[in-house]
């Protein structure tokens, strides 16, 4: 995996966690902030799901490679 793909791959985790942290931080601030909080939580959850799927694919491939050698 080249460095660009590596950055992209790990960015799903980092951006997902950051979005969730900011969204959760805004959550108790009342109804005015709720729209943004929901949006960030949703975006963060989406990023983490993408990361989880890519993570699964990547390590399944790695396992196969090590099993093949």
């Amino acid at each position, binding site marked *: 995996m080249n460095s660009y793909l590596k950055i992209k791959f790990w960015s799903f985790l980092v951006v997902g966690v950051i979005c*969730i942290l900011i969204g959760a931080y805004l959550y108790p601030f*009342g109804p005015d902030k709720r729209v943004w909080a929901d949006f960030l939580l*949703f975006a963060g959850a989406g990023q983490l799901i993408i990361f989880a799927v890519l993570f699964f694919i990547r390590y399944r491939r790695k396992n196969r490679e090590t099993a093949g050698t």
Partner: protein
Amino acid sequence: MLSLAGMSLILNHGCNKVEESQGASRESTNILIYEDASLKEQVSSYFYDNHIYRIELLGANREREEIFREALAEGAEEGFLNLEGAQKFFFNHTDVIMYSIPTLDPEQTLILYESHGLYQVSMAHFRPVEGGLMKFTLKTMDDRDYFSLKLDEQNRMGDLRISENEKIKSFNKAVNSLTLNEESQDEQLKGSSAICCRKESSWSECMECTVDDCSGSWVCKVVAMIAPAELVAGFAASCIGAGPDARC
């Protein structure tokens, strides 16, 4: 003597009038046929369970006149309906009210669904078919099928067929949009009156308030499944500094 006779006549006439008016009011009120109050609270998630918690026989009142008018407007024949047997059904899983009006044909019953002042008039057909089965068909008044199913001797359902029916579709849409509007108004009210959890007296109360609030939001629930630690960490951070004078 004459005056006594006159008085008794007046009294008798008055009594008859009271009886008449009592009888009329008895006739005009709906009569309760069946009610199971426990069903009102306990709603089964299975659609085939009993959801009818109350049945009333309609009296000669405005409600009956109104459904009769709706039925006639949809093309039902006046002489064909047995209005005295009209019944009203209440369900515990929906706000829709169902009325049934028996007809001169024992195999047909007029069905009216009412929701938010909108009516859908249908005709239910129930007739024996081959193999000792009974076929139940619900049709709109333009004689187009809405759905049909067959019942065996043990009242087991089968061969359910749902047909494309524009009238039913548009009724569903109208009711759905009305219900959605009401719900979104409720949401707005809830939103505007929602307490900012940072106004709670302490950090722990702010956390309790936030977690409680989170359980009411499906987005928050989904995130709690995917990243619970991050979510709670965010809540914990935002509840730092919570108190009655906290900024919201």
